[in-house]
């Protein structure tokens, strides 16, 4: 097959997606912002990073009435965080894991702790542990404590539904007035005991 034919087929496969992306963004962003955001998205694509989160970030900014400069800064920041996340998690990381890891980095988790969590999770998906970790930090559990707990839960083989329940229980405890760090530590200890013990399903 000639080079021209291959290029033609590649163009036909790639062009519609690029058009779709431009259409969604161009409907909401002004021209200078659109150009800047598209440049960041193109760079991310070249770096083999997921581009949908970047587009979503820009659309979110537009929906919230943010100015163009703010949107560009937010999209660029997310792109950099996803780049860091991918470096730490490796090429086998899924787009969801990269996105969740970028959010965790934004919350203050260090790349070293991200690598610890990766190691503790083994081959299990990290998306839920990362979402729970970020939530704990947002709810004022100190970063070191939150990271240590989630790493410990991952190492104990706690499954995603149990992690989701753990998050809900900690949130409920904090809403009732518990100290965030104590609530998280206590609930995590109980979960680890249940996981390593009889294997009973957790309950509220």
């Amino acid at each position, binding site marked *: 097959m000639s080079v021209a034919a291959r290029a033609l087929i590649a163009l036909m496969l790639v062009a519609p*997606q690029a*058009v*779709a992306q431009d259409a*969604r963004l161009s409907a909401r962003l002004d021209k200078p912002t659109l150009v800047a955001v598209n440049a960041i998205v193109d760079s991310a694509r070249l770096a083999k990073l997921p581009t949908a989160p970047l587009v*979503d970030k820009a659309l979110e900014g537009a929906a919230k009435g943010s100015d163009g400069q703010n949107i560009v800064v937010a999209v660029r920041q997310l792109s950099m965080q996803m780049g860091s996340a991918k470096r730490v998690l490796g090429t086998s990381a899924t787009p*969801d894991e990269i996105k969740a890891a970028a959010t965790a980095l*934004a919350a203050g988790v260090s790349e070293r702790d991200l690598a610890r969590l990766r190691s503790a999770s083994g081959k299990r998906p990290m998306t839920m542990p990362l979402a729970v970790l970020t939530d704990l930090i947002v709810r004022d559990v100190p970063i070191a404590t939150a990271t240590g707990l989630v790493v410990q839960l991952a190492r104990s083989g706690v499954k995603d539904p149990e992690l989701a329940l753990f998050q809900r229980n900690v949130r409920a405890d904090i809403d009732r007035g518990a100290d965030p760090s104590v609530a998280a530590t206590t609930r995590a200890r109980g979960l680890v005991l249940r996981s390593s013990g009889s294997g009973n399903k957790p309950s509220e």
Partner: protein
Amino acid sequence: MRDETEQDIERIARELRVPVAVGRALDARVMRAVRRLPRHARFGLWSRLITPRTVTVTPLVWGMLAAAVAMFAVLGAMHAGADLNRAAKPIARAFFPGPKNAASTSQRVQFVLVAPDAKKVAVVGDFNGWDASHAAYQAQHRGGGVWSVTAPVPLGHHRYSFVVDDSLWVADPTAPRVIDYDYGMPNSAIVVQEQK
């Protein structure tokens, strides 16, 4: 002596001038012999497929090819326009949809917010392009200040928020939060997984 030689030559020439009688079966015998010969490699089908050849393309054909590409792009843009209110969806998938059983790519999720004073509540997020007017994500008032909507959400990690009365952004109080201070308004996170 010379006369004898000339006579011999004359006799030989006379013999050569006599027409040769060819049998009717000769053609058939020759063709049978030709067919028995091995076929030349260049006439094989595979050879025809892999042998480079020069193709002349007229400007008209190039124009038609370019028009086909342009039409494809325009159709893609039209599809994108129709899908603006939906979650991010590659146009390639719109043209070549996957299996009809969509259960493996999304799950129905119930969003609930207690907002007694609200007149309108919508859910916006990564799954609907952050579009507060998206019809499928408008919450209904169930009474007692409880608003809820059950809508399909693609598998994966998503950020989302409630929009109350088109102006107030409220994170889901029951869901994990994300630090999303870029735009100064809170978001929640949801991880949608395949039901086992």
